[in-house]
């Protein structure tokens, strides 16, 4: 009994300590504050929609943005940090979505079915990672495309798993067996998971692990000379990317409650890739911005604006992608930097004008 109590004590001390460190971190590190702002901001949208200031469907749209931010974050670790390309992302998202539904129909609770899906995804990630030890560059990218295509064939044909073209229906998740979430609660849950995944990425990339990934992608031999194990970190980055994608898929099924096989194609993969590139490689908030530009702007603005002629919304979102990539090859997140620069220029200009004015008097 005493032993149990002392363990309990230790754990409470540990939790208190972690909490204290978290609070102090939020106070000192601006990044954490931004994570909190983002979380609050996303939930303000929910509030606005509840108050009928925003459309009911806008929440669905932001849920999509949240889900694909998670997926794109994983790809950003893989591409931005490890310099590896994957064209199988959509397949892994689809796997996550189908997986959680399937294991729940077997009778497992939400958490366990998610966990099983994640564990299977880890093994798939390890397999892809092992493959990547032998195959490089464009060959690797197209090989992952093959993996994605195999997934999409499975989604279309393995009836017991995916119900083929009929698709599978699902429900809002029940946490811990008794907390039944409704649409709004699921949305809050989604945004919470997204912020957690962002913090995980932030921690990972600003550590020895992140530096090792960068070292590996920028110069293989230099990384080896510094003791970075290429095989370990290649496996690691594929596993992480696929886990992020799978978690995105699980959340997709949880919010939209319907999964059908035709969504998980090369087009979606490329759009996710575009989200990463347009937003900004290696940037967490850039990824969110990228998803917003690629998915949010067309859905929120372009489709309403050009609803009269079919296809024109597409035309504009295509042009948007091209223009952004051409003018911001390092990602839209750098636009803030440019705005600051412009503002400074304007301020200096204004000051000079004032000074000139002083001279006249």
């Amino acid at each position, binding site marked *: 009994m005493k032993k149990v109590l002392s363990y309990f004590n230790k754990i409470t001390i540990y939790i208190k300590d972690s909490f204290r460190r978290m609070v102090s971190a939020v106070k000192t590190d601006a990044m954490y504050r931004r994570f909190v702002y983002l979380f609050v901001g996303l939930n303000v949208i929910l509030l606005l929609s509840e108050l009928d200031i925003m459309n009911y469907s806008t929440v669905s749209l932001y849920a999509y943005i949240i889900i694909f931010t998670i997926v794109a974050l994983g790809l950003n670790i893989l591409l931005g940090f490890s310099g590896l390309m994957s064209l199988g992302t959509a397949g892994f998202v689809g796997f996550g979505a189908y997986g959680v539904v399937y294991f729940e129909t077997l009778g497992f609770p939400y958490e366990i079915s998610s966990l099983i899906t994640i564990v299977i995804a880890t093994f798939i990630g390890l397999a892809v990672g092992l493959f990547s030890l032998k195959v490089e560059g464009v060959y690797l990218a197209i090989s992952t495309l093959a993996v994605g295509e195999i997934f999409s064939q499975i989604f279309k044909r393995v009836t017991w798993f995916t119900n083929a073209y009929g698709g599978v229906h699902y429900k809002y998740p029940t946490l811990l067996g008794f907390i039944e979430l409704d649409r709004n609660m699921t949305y809050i849950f989604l945004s919470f998971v997204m912020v957690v995944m962002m913090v995980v990425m932030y*921690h990972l990339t600003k*550590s020895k692990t992140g530096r090792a990934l960068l070292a590996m992608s*920028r110069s293989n031999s230099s990384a*080896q*000379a*510094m003791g*970075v194990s290429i095989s370990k970190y290649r496996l690691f980055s594929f596993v992480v990317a696929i886990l992020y994608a799978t978690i995105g898929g699980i959340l997709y099924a949880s919010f939209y409650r319907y999964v059908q096989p035709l969504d998980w194609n090369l087009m979606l993969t490329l759009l996710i890739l575009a989200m990463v590139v347009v937003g900004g490689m290696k940037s967490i908030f850039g990824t969110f911005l990228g998803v917003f530009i690629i998915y949010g702007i067309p859905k929120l603005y372009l489709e309403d604006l050009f609803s009269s002629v079919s296809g024109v919304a597409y035309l504009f979102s295509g042009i948007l992608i091209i223009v952004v990539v051409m003018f911001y090859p390092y990602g839209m997140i750098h636009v803030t930097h440019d705005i600051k620069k412009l503002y400074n220029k304007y301020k200096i200009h204004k000051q000079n004008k004032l000074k000139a004015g002083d001279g006249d008097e």
Partner: protein
Amino acid sequence: MSDNTNKSYVLKPGTLLDIQNLSMRFGGLTAVNNLSFDIKENEIFGLIGPNGAGKTTVFNCITQFYKDKDGIIIFNNKKNEIINLNDIHVEKIIKEGLVRTFQNVELIKDLSVIDNLLIGAHTLFKSDFIGHIFRSKRASEEETFYKAKALEILKFMKIDYLKDQYVAGQPYGILKKIGIARTLMSNPKLIILDEPAAGLNETETTELSKLMIQIKENYKCSILLVEHDMGFVMGVCDRICAINFGKFLALGTPDYIKRHPDVQEAYLGRDDE
């Protein structure tokens, strides 16, 4: 090579690295041919030879970037064990106390100077990625500790004012310095420098010579370097080994090498021409 695995090796006291009968072939070309030399503890050792003499190949053999070579490379590692480096994987070499730089620097351009140094301490970190994800106490303490160490090294190299700047856009001389600073992070016993003075101007080269000697004194390690700048090599090295076409020519003090007829013929050109 495999019959060497379980053998125990001997080194003369005071010797750090002993290369015996090293040969390396690329197809029909013999880049290194039956080469032997040794490096003592706390010494600066130069490896010289004309272009294409196989110097970088020797480096890549020692640091195990090349497999399938003949000969043995005996090393007295950090734990004072005598080992054959050929038994060690290229990614584990740094753990034994041997670290190298590259001819074309190979730093990470989109990281700050101090983060580049922290990569040098990669193998010293004990925390794993789970610790990193949760930013555990140990992981953050380690991070602070090695950051302090990196800063100390940067101060020693007199480039600490650059610590938070990106590596991209720094002048070549600074990049070379960062490369050397990064090697110091791993507490090495032997640092291998591939053309440290290439691309530097005269002031920078003089500064580098001083730095070499300071590193040897302060960090109690040996340095093996390949260099074309003869003035630099002769000024800074305790001993020099000259090779040509992968073959041993001479080994001795700078004065001995300077006067050695074979070296003069191969490297400095013949007098009567």
